[in-house]
């Protein structure tokens, strides 16, 4: 017997502002409006691809030319083009996996074009025997795959500004990507070199112009870090560290050292430029937080979000991403009345630890101004804070590790903007 389509306009609300029960998604045949514009329809006999042979095979697939606007947004130094960032367009994507060509980047001095035959990873310092590994050798080691997000410590830092920045979700929060990473557990290589008693840190160094270096506690390295060789099934791309990068699950992006060439096992951090003058957060007291490795519990509504328009009052799908460097996302709540009331969103499978988790909830927009928010809770009970609470605690000069609730204002004409 065909299931009857529920009347979306009479369903009871589960929270203020028109939020509906998250389980509505499970009902088949339920179509929800989105903020994306609908394509024009055309008669089938006018469609040329139905009447002429298509293009031949290509060795490596590329996105449709019609999707060329789904691209990374680049913010680089005018004087040095290889110094800057590129943002993942989060609001253009669905699911939880970031396509490799859209993974966010942060480079200090360009993308090195490394010949894998000439690249070596050296493990030395407080070890029984300093060892060098070439790429071919590492590809023969036992590997592990894990779906993990990587988020830059500076992601969302416009949130510290006094006024909300009016840019798309991805252009503010898109120093965040998620992939299946495959590589060699670092503990295997350390065991082979034989770590000395008294070692407590590992200093990782890249082979970029500038040989960026960062210190990581040995316990973390042994616990779950990988030498990443593959990203979503293919070898890493140059801009993501080819031929190998460090994968440090749940910790800030700068530690995932790209183009990895050296691991020095030591008894202390090196106090490099990036772990002293950068990636430290100045507090109102004048003291700075240092070694703030874990990316905290966080979420972001990607649809609807800044720059999109709701064409008419209707029932919409509110959808977004949640993540926590501490572990698994347990709960995401959404508010349509600026945080006065909240409803549980549905979490899509898989909801993996230290991985992006997709959430969804239906929302009936009545055409009046509304403020949408989402807040995540992880399995350890970490709750994403309101912006005012985060600013009260940390001040506004911290620059890094901003994880406050993001609010989108929906105007009566359907336009969505960033608000506090």
């Amino acid at each position, binding site marked *: 017997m065909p299931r009857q389509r529920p009347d979306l306009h009479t369903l009871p609300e589960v929270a203020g502002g028109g939020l509906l029960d998250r389980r509505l998604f499970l009902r088949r045949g339920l179509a929800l409006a989105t903020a994306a514009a609908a394509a024009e329809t055309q008669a089938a006999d006018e469609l040329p691809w139905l009447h002429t042979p298509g293009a031949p095979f290509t060795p490596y697939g590329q996105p449709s030319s019609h999707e060329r606007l789904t691209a990374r947004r680049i913010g680089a130094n005018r004087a040095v083009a290889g110094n800057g960032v590129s943002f993942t367009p989060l609001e253009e994507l669905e699911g939880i996996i970031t396509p490799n060509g859209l993974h966010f980047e942060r480079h*200090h001095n360009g993308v090195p074009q490394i010949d894998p035959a000439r690249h070596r990873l*050296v493990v030395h310092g407080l070890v029984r025997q300093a*060892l060098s590994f070439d790429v071919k050798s590492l590809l023969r080691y036992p590997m592990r795959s894990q779906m993990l997000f990587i988020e830059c410590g500076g992601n969302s830092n416009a949130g510290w500004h006094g006024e909300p920045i009016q840019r798309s979700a991805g252009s503010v929060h898109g120093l965040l990507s998620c992939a299946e990473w495959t590589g060699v557990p670092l503990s295997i290589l350390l065991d082979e070199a034989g770590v000395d008693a008294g070692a*407590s840190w590992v200093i990782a160094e890249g082979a970029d112009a500038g*040989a960026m270096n960062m210190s990581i506690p040995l316990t973390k390295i042994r616990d779950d870090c990988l030498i990443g060789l593959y990203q979503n099934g293919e070898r890493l791309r140059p801009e993501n560290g080819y031929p190998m990068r460090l994968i440090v699950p749940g910790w800030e992006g700068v530690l995932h050292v790209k183009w990895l060439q050296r691991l020095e096992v030591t008894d202390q951090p090196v106090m*490099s430029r990036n772990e*002293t003058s950068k990636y430290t957060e100045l507090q109102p007291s*004048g003291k700075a937080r240092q070694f703030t490795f874990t990316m905290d519990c966080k979420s972001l509504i990607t649809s609807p979000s800044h720059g999109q328009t709701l064409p008419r009052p209707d029932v919409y799908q509110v959808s977004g991403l949640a993540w926590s460097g501490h572990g698994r996302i347990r709960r995401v709540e959404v508010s349509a009345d600026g945080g006065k009331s909240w409803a549980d969103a549905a979490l899509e499978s898989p909801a993996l630890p230290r991985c992006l988790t997709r959430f969804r909830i239906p929302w009936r927009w009545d055409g009046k101004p509304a403020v949408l928010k989402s807040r995540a809770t992880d399995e350890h009970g970490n709750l994403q804070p309101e912006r005012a609470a985060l600013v009260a605690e940390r001040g506004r000069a911290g620059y890094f590790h901003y994880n406050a609730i993001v609010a989108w204002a929906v105007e009566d004409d359907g336009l969505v903007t960033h608000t506090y």
Partner: protein
Amino acid sequence: MGWSRTHTERAAALLSSLLLSACVATPNAVEAPRLGQAVDGAALARQQLNVFPDGRGLPPGRGTVSEGAALFARHCAACHGKDARGGSAEELAGATRPLNTPAADKTIGSYWPYATTLFDFIRRAKPMTAPGTLNADEVYALSAWLLHINGVVGADAVMDARTLPAVRMPNRDGFIRIEAE
């Protein structure tokens, strides 16, 4: 521990260690192919760039404040400004707003906790157009000049493997370690 194992205990311990090694999810070193190649110590020393707060990793050499001034003008001023107060690249000196005020200046003199970081970073990353090309004397000299214009050392300072780690930076105790001992 003043106890000795019986045969049964020894057998049980052996069995459990066998079971344990068979059950660990992560492949251990025994199962790995062990393809790492021994590294020549001299080559390793040449490539090693890490410089620690206690001075470990610093090479022989020396540089003065005045030598550093000339090097900065040639290699660095275009981006950091002639007084190192910032340009297309960040400010390195000249802080006026203290760290406990809004829009505080985070310069070498006001913010960086260790002088050795200067050597570590300049040697590996500068100048931007040709990183890793400055020799040890030049890096010591640039470190000396940057410390001098930040008011940390005098105009006659000479930096080397002994004097650089001995410099106590003004904000040495300005950091709270959140996730590290």
